[in-house]
């Protein structure tokens, strides 16, 4: 299983995403935004960061990068694609996912360990979770407010395409507490919080057992491996 992680100018969390892929048991493949070659990977991660300085709109210029033509084509043919934070913003700008992300309603950048509920396991990236499971992974963004019109929100809910919801506090004004969504096929998932920062004991969120021992993010990456194995 080879999982590509695309680096854009201004990506921050590409190395962490590669590390998460490796810890989950797959081979990470570093891909470059300026290429048109996905190098035969089986899945893709669009990492967090501030691509192109978040100029124009977050993720908008990155969504026009050369490699995004191949990403969009692969996603439409069913390749698993995970967009984390800035990657989620790119997926909405590329119209692979509905809605948009706007500045946090309180106007501040926020960085915290965030509790989420898993609203569906019927995606390529959430199959190893339990439905309704509460997980804790880091959240860090300035423009993470998920918005869409009411019809789109209703459709996302009716079709079971809300993947994660914020629990306890809505940290950025996202409508209906939505933290992440998927496409109709379930292969493309985008979310604002960062699973790749919660994959190894000693470096994750605090838990009741021990400081920094949270590894709830690892299941994102094992899920996509499990899904690939199930198809063999």
């Amino acid at each position, binding site marked *: 299983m080879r999982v590509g992680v695309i680096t854009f100018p201004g990506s921050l969390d590409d190395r962490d995403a590669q590390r998460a892929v490796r810890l989950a048991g797959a081979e990470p493949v570093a891909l470059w935004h300026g290429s048109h070659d996905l190098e035969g990977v089986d899945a893709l991660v669009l990492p967090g960061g501030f691509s192109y300085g978040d100029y124009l709109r977050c993720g908008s210029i990155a969504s026009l990068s050369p490699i995004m033509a191949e990403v969009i084509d692969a996603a439409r043919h069913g390749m698993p694609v995970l967009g984390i934070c800035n990657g989620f913003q790119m997926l909405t700008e590329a119209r692979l996912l509905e809605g948009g992300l*706007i500045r946090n309603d309180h*106007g501040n950048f*926020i*960085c915290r360990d965030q509790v989420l509920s898993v609203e569906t396991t019927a995606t390529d990236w959430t199959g190893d979770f339990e439905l309704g499971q509460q997980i804790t992974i880091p959240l*860090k963004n300035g423009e993470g407010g998920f*918005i869409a019109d009411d019809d789109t929100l209703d459709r996302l809910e009716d079709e079971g395409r809300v993947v994660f919801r914020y629990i306890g*506090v809505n940290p950025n004004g996202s409508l209906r507490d939505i933290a992440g969504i998927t496409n109709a096929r379930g292969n493309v998932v985008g979310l604002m919080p960062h699973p790749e920062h919660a994959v190894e004991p000693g470096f994750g969120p605090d838990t009741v057992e021990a400081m920094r021992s949270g590894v709830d993010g690892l299941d994102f990456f094992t899920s996509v491996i499990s899904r690939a194995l199930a198809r063999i």
Partner: protein
Amino acid sequence: MPTIVVDVMPKAELLDPQGKAVAGALSRTGHEAVTGVRIGKRFELTVDGPVDDAVRADIEQIAADILSNGVIEDVVAIHWGDDDVTAPPADDTDSETVDVSLTDAELAEAAATAPEAHDGVGYDAPAGETH
């Protein structure tokens, strides 16, 4: 060289945290006549040569597809120069454009009232926040 100006605004019904922050500062400094502020973007596009129909069509498409995101923003005007202001095209793509039949007063009213639903939310630092 002609310069074409494209004005983009966040959708009137959306909260505009930047505008709200500025409005708060104006209120704090005693400018009580101002009841609302919204912040948008102005793009100046310089073209080489005459602005013919093909260039116009291209720029209208750029405005709708790249300079704005129809989910969260509207192209409110394209200024072609010489006070020749046109509305964005009611194109057949999935991009959403503002109903330019709205008067400035109506837009201002929408802008002033829309964020009300969010007022009072304030910044309530969630527990565990580190920054």
